[in-house]
């Protein structure tokens, strides 16, 4: 079990065999003023564990728990094929090339179930390798092809340089627009097809390919971004949007009508603003540093 220890008590119940968890598929109607538990699948936590993306799970879990909303987290590792329809949110994070290749192969078996769940409105929040593998394919600079799930209409090619910097983009969800910040660290160049829209519009940083000012991809409840950081802890608005959508599905109301108690976000805002200031200081730079230069030890 590689999940967060802190989440273990609520996790234990969910981490049983798929059959026994079926009871959770139809949640009991929530009493007035209360919410049903949010059920989260964390994809490949022991493979995709770089750059602190696990912080996204921590952010959603804590922000729900602080409001008295229970969270059930299930780690989905290699070789497991759960029915994704029983989850409200699926987290699919970034990883290094070697781990991504292992995941790409295994993910083929999970993709059909995830596709069905997405069709029913399950939320997916994907970062970096997760974004790339939700697309049609990833073609490395050496020409090797990794098949993706085709859930998002996008394709990624390995690029010659690595984008590594603080970045910021404007994201619109349900008519509300906010600045989302994070740290990009990728060399893949992603092109979106007509079947999906961008997750955000770059304000500072490279985004999908350093050229068209687009960041990530979005299709319905599937959100995919290149922003590490991790993204959700310093973008509480975005974390809350995901929580809202999750609750709205169970409660049958529009996400904007979900009654979500406000939290004191002073520390979150501060982290957001510092990251934003850093991103703005780099504004206009399409790329940051080439890894080869760094590996040679020139730290300028």
């Amino acid at each position, binding site marked *: 079990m590689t999940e967060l220890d802190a989440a273990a008590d609520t996790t234990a119940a969910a981490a049983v065999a798929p059959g026994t968890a079926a009871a959770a598929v139809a949640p009991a109607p929530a009493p007035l003023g209360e919410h049903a538990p949010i059920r989260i699948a964390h994809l490949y936590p022991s493979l995709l564990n770089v750059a602190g993306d696990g912080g996204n799970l921590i952010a959603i879990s804590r922000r729900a728990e602080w409001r008295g909303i229970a969270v059930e987290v299930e780690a989905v590792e290699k070789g497991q094929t759960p029915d994704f329809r029983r989850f409200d949110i699926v987290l699919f994070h970034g990883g290094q090339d070697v781990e991504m290749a292992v995941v790409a192969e295994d993910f083929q078996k999970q993709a059909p179930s995830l596709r069905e769940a997405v069709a029913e409105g399950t939320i997916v929040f994907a970062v970096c390798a997760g974004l790339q593998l939700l697309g049609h394919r990833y073609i490395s600079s050496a020409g090797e092809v990794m098949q993706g799930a085709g859930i998002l209409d996008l394709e990624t090619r390995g690029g010659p340089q690595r984008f590594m910097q603080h970045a910021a983009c404007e994201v619109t969800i349900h008519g509300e627009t906010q600045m989302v910040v994070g740290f990009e660290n990728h060399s893949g160049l992603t092109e979106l097809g007509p079947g999906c829209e961008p997750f955000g519009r770059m304000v500072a940083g490279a985004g999908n390919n350093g050229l068209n000012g687009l960041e990530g991809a979005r299709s319905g409840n599937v959100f995919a971004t290149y922003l590490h950081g991790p993204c959700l802890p310093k973008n509480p608005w975005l974390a809350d949007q995901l929580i809202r959508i999750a609750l709205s599905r169970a409660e049958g109301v529009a996400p904007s009508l979900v009654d979500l108690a406000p939290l004191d976000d002073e520390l979150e805002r501060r982290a957001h603003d510092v*990251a934003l200031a850093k991103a703005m200081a780099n504004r206009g730079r399409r790329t940051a540093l080439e890894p080869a230069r760094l*590996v040679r030890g020139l730290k300028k």
Partner: protein
Amino acid sequence: MTSLIDRRAPGPKKSLSFRTFLALAAGKSAAHATRLAGRGGGTSITGMVARRLDPRVLERLVRDQGVPVVAITGSNGKTTTARFTAALLRGEGVTVSHNSAGANLIQGITSLAVSYADLRGDLPDGVLVVEVDEGALPKVAPELAPRALLVTDLFRDQLDRFGEIYAVADAIESVAAGLPPESALIVNGDDPMVAMLARSRRGRRITFGLEIERSTDRITRAADTIRCPKCRSDLEYRFVYLSHMGDYSCPSCGFQRPRLDVAVTELEVVGLDRTRMEIQTSSGKLEIEIPQSGVHIAYDAAAAIAILVGLGVSLEHAAESLGAVGPAFGRLETIDADGRALLLAFAKNPTSYNTTLRALATEEEPRQLLIAASNTLVDGEDFGWLWDVDFETMAPKVERAVVSGTRADELANRLKYAGVPAERLTIVEDRRAALDAALADLPADCRLVVLTGYTPLIELRNEMMRRGWTGRYWAV
């Protein structure tokens, strides 16, 4: 076995070129000027000035003169291993110079050579022990032509600096493969990726690690490289000793831990201040007790002993030499702050953080905390890895935390999400003010745990020295 520590210049001694002389003289006076101006020890300015005047100054002083060099690289344990190696060599009567200030980039290493050299360009007799940043190694190694190269371990450390750990491993592998056959390559056999990069080595190779029949750690979220570096399948561990280091094998391709030349066969970590171990080499067994605590101390000790084995130097006084090496700069160092106890701990990545937090937990610490993170070039820009640190276990104990450094924002937010209530967190970015704030309300019977990255550590340490606190150790 012949010893590798004799000086052997490739040809008759050449006199110094005017250019190198100029670089030496200018570098030395730059250090002097900085010290006079009270701006620290001038650790990298010397090298920067000298290299500007003669870009080849380091190779002229070291490689061209046949100075025997021990280079120590890897993610963790470089400083401690360098100190152990220097102590062991000195114990056997060998003169040693080494870069103890942790200035391990090319400018810092050049500074070391320039400040040790006299104006004729001669370095003192004996061995130069050099700690080299794993990213700087490919550039530094050819200028040093090391007789012994040690790779401690490879952890995911500052991804934003290197992109990916695999690129670092590849770069180290090409340096290792390019060493002359008589030079010694010393590798941590318990780290799969380090063991892998040594496979292409033709020539002298020494492996070290732990050979004990129990696990001393478990694989956590912070661990990486637990995929087989050869075929990418999941490795199986008979025992896990520290993060991803252990006795492993690959069920699908058969890749496994190599036979160890130097092995820790018994290990006992005693409280926060001592580690006892038994180390087996081909020439016998050594009983060692070191006044520092942790499984990583056993790795560092085994590494240093493996270096001496690699160099062909005897180990007659090993126990005595290592027994006298106290904690390095900020590695769980206890300081008397005008009658109040302060525990200074350095943590730079998830692994070193988790190791330190586990050690503190054995003493029900930290209750009172000063914690700092800054983003400078040395510390890295991306602090996402803070979310891989197991702060959750620590959080319930924390009664109060002062959060400092230029990335206090990220750190405070992380601690909040780990479960430290926001009202127990105070952000004081300035390091000096943070130290005052943390000490101001410190209960009389409580010690302050100072947990910090590299740059804030130096700043805090300098401030403590200014206040006359350091150098006086408490008996823990």
